[in-house]
């Protein structure tokens, strides 16, 4: 077992998984929030855009989006996200493309989680905010969203757990995250196949379990406060 850890960079692979999760989560949160605001805005064009965004990205398999960022965005359209002269160009570029794919995909789920949160805010509060003269964006920022996030803790947390596991899809464009290294190890050390599976299963549980516990704790605290 110790020999497996010295032979393969298992911890490094999980570190890549954590980094993918971290940056994609921030991206998904920002994009998802913007799209959710569009979906409840008074401007029909923005609403239409928001709805289309969710319908497209929520219904396309992540693998397809992932492959598209590499073959479509980079190789065909020439979108370059890293320094081309660098020795680590392929590694960096693929890593960043993977973050883009993960972020735009999970943003649709963030958007829908937030929308369910927005629905927990009594419409009367938004009307009261309008009646004291807040503009749409002020209303969203100071009255609706702070409450919507509280109402959306559980679905947002579930989206984060899904994101952690979905980072494994980045292996299809060669990002050396956990499942990529696992596949390497299975090739080389089929003799300890079950051990390898167990190591990676436990690794992911270590990442996701705290998130689940945190969600329960936070939603309980907010429930008491309300």
């Amino acid at each position, binding site marked *: 077992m110790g020999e497996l850890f010295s032979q393969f960079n298992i911890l490094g692979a999980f570190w890549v998984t954590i980094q993918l999760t971290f940056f994609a989560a921030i991206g998904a949160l920002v994009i998802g929030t913007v799209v959710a605001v569009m979906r409840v805005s008074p401007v029909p064009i923005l609403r239409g855009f928001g709805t289309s965004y969710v319908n497209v990205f929520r219904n396309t398999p992540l693998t397809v989006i992932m492959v598209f960022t590499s073959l479509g965005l980079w190789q065909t359209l020439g979108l370059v996200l890293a320094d081309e002269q660098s020795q680590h160009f392929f590694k960096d570029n693929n890593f960043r493309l993977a973050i883009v794919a993960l972020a735009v995909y999970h943003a649709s789920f963030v958007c829908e989680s937030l929308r369910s949160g927005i629905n927990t805010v009594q419409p009367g509060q938004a009307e*009261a905010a309008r009646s004291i003269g807040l503009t749409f964006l002020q209303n969203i920022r*100071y009255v609706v969203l702070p409450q919507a996030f509280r109402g959306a803790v559980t679905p947002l947390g579930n989206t984060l757990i899904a994101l952690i596991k979905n980072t494994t899809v980045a292996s299809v464009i060669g990002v050396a995250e956990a499942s990529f290294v696992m596949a390497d190890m299975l090739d080389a050390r089929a003799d300890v196949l079950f051990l390898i599976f167990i190591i990676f299963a436990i690794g992911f549980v270590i990442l996701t379990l705290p998130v689940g516990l945190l969600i329960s704790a936070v939603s309980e605290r907010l429930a008491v406060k309300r």
Partner: protein
Amino acid sequence: MTDALPAAHVDPDGAASTSGRPHTGEPLVVLDHVNKHFGELHVLKDIDLTVHHGEVVVVVGPSGSGKSTLCRTINRLETFESGSISIDGKPLPDEGKDLARLRADVGMVFQSFNLFAHKTILENVTLGPIKVRGVKKAEAEQRARELLERVGVQAQADKYPAQLSGGQQQRVAIARSLAMDPKVMLFDEPTSALDPEMINEVLDVMTKLARSGMTMVVVTHEMGFARKAGDRVVFMADGQIVEENTPEEFFLHPRSDRAKDFLGKILTH
């Protein structure tokens, strides 16, 4: 940024007032042939209504007659198809920044209070002045405390809305509106979601406000309030203004059959 409003027409204590309030004031809210539909339903039919500076207009009428819609249309929470509405000589602008500014001049108190649940009582009252009028936080808080004292809930300033009784919440909602120094305040059945023992504490605040010279449009079936504080009663039925009169005259000698019928119903229970 800060268009400081003449708050002078509202006497902070609500004390200095004479009985027969003059309402010879200039027209403040003018509705001219306003029509509104909800789909097929014609909810406001050719409404003409002028509310003068300092006047208190009580709107009564059967359920579904369009009273709430009238209030919401004046505040432009609802759109309308034809006619015009002006506030202090300025026509209602379309959606956007101008409209938001105008809404700040028109206070609205809802049946269901609609306080911001995630903000403290004090924050509920200061949000508008700080974000809309650009008032400094310390200044807004001081003013908010004065207003909370005026409506009798100063002790609750740091609590959250859910910790207050309905009557207290509604008084906070009134303070929240007042903090914007509105030119006119609209009340849509402000006491009908309250337990009976809390109705008077809210009506007292409203009566004081009326005495202080605030221009008010009040949808209510509280006849005591209408008589004590109202200058005029407007009776609506089926989206039309059927009858207008002084409170005494209206309640004692209704002219139209619709009004007689309506009063017969609310007086017998």
